[in-house]
C-alpha cells in the first residue's frame, strides 16, 4: 500500500517541481536531512527520478506515453519495461552494426614495429 502512496507523491506536481529545482540549484535540499538517508527516502528518490524521466518522455512526445499511463502504476510499469527492452535491443543492434562495419573495413594490425 505504501509503495502506491509513495509513487503518487513522487509523480505529484509539487514534488516533481521541487526535484527539478533541487537538481538545478545544488544548494536546495529535498529533505530535512541532507545525508544518512532512510530506506524510504532512497526509494522515494528512485521514484522521483523515474517519474522525472517519464514526464521528460511525455514532453518529447515519445511513443506509448501519456498522462494516463503515468497515473496508472501498472501501465507505467508496462511502459518502463517496454522502454528498457527497446534500449537493450537498440544496444544489440548498434553492436551488430559496429561489427558489420568493422568486418567490412580494412583492418589494420599494429605490431611492435608499427610505432
Amino acid at each position, binding site marked *: 500500500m*505504501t509503495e502506491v502512496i509513495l509513487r503518487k507523491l513522487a509523480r505529484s506536481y509539487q514534488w516533481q517541481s521541487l526535484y527539478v529545482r533541487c537538481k538545478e540549484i545544488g544548494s536546495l535540499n529535498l529533505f530535512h536531512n541532507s545525508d544518512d538517508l532512510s530506506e524510504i527516502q532512497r526509494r522515494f528518490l528512485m521514484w522521483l527520478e523515474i517519474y522525472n524521466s517519464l514526464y521528460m518522455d511525455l514532453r518529447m512526445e515519445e511513443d506509448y506515453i501519456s498522462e494516463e499511463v503515468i497515473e496508472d502504476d501498472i501501465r507505467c510499469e508496462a511502459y518502463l519495461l517496454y522502454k528498457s527492452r527497446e534500449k537493450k535491443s537498440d544496444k544489440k543492434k548498434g553492436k551488430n552494426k559496429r561489427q558489420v562495419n568493422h568486418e567490412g573495413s580494412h583492418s589494420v594490425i599494429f605490431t611492435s614495429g608499427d610505432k
Partner: protein
Amino acid sequence: MEQKRNEQETRKIAEQLLKTINDIEGVENAERKVKDNKILFKVAGKVYRVRRPTYEEQMEAEKFRRKKYIEFVNDKTMMFRKQWVKIYKEKGIDINQMEAEMSTLQAKIELVLLRLAKIQNEKDVKKLRDEVLTLRTKQAEINIEKTDLLSYSIEDQLMITINSYYAYMLLEEQDKENDKWIRVFKTYEDFSNSQDSDLINKTFYHTNYLIYTTRI
C-alpha cells in the same frame, strides 16, 4: 469450543493489525516519513519517534547478530533454509518448484506488460491489466506460502531478531524537562517482554522504513 475461541482471537489480532495499518497509512503520513530520516508517531496520546542508527548502534547490532547466530547454529531445534527445503521435499513439498513457478509467472507477467505497453484501447487495457493482477496474485500466494514454510529457518529467525533489536534501540520518547529524546526501554529484554502491542507493532512498522535489514 477451543477452536472457536482460537478463531475469535485470530480475528481480533487481524483486526488490531488492520487498525494499526489504517492508522499509519495515508498520503500525509507518507509525506512526513519521506521528509525526514526520523519518524514521529503517537500511541495513546504520547509522542514517540524512531530514528536512523548511529555507527556505534550498528556495531552493537552486528555484535548482537553474531551472538544470536552462534546461539541459533548451536540450537539443535533450529535449521538453515537449505535443510528445511530438503525436509519439505521428503514430505512432498517442493520449494524449488515453487520458486520455478514464481519465475514462470514473472516471465508471463512481463509478456503481458509488453503487450499492455503498446495498447491504448480502453477495453483491451482493462483486460490486460486484469491479467497482470491475476498473475501477480498467484505469484504472491506462492510467495506467502514459501515465506511461511521457511519462517522457522535460522536465516528468517535471525532477521526477525535483529529487526527487534533495532526497534528496541531506535524507539525513543521525549523527555520534555531536559529537552531530549531517551530510549523507551532500558534493556532488550524489557522491550521483548512489553505487553504494549500497539506501541511494539507501530515501532516495527516505522523502523522498517528507516533501516536496511540484510539476510545472512
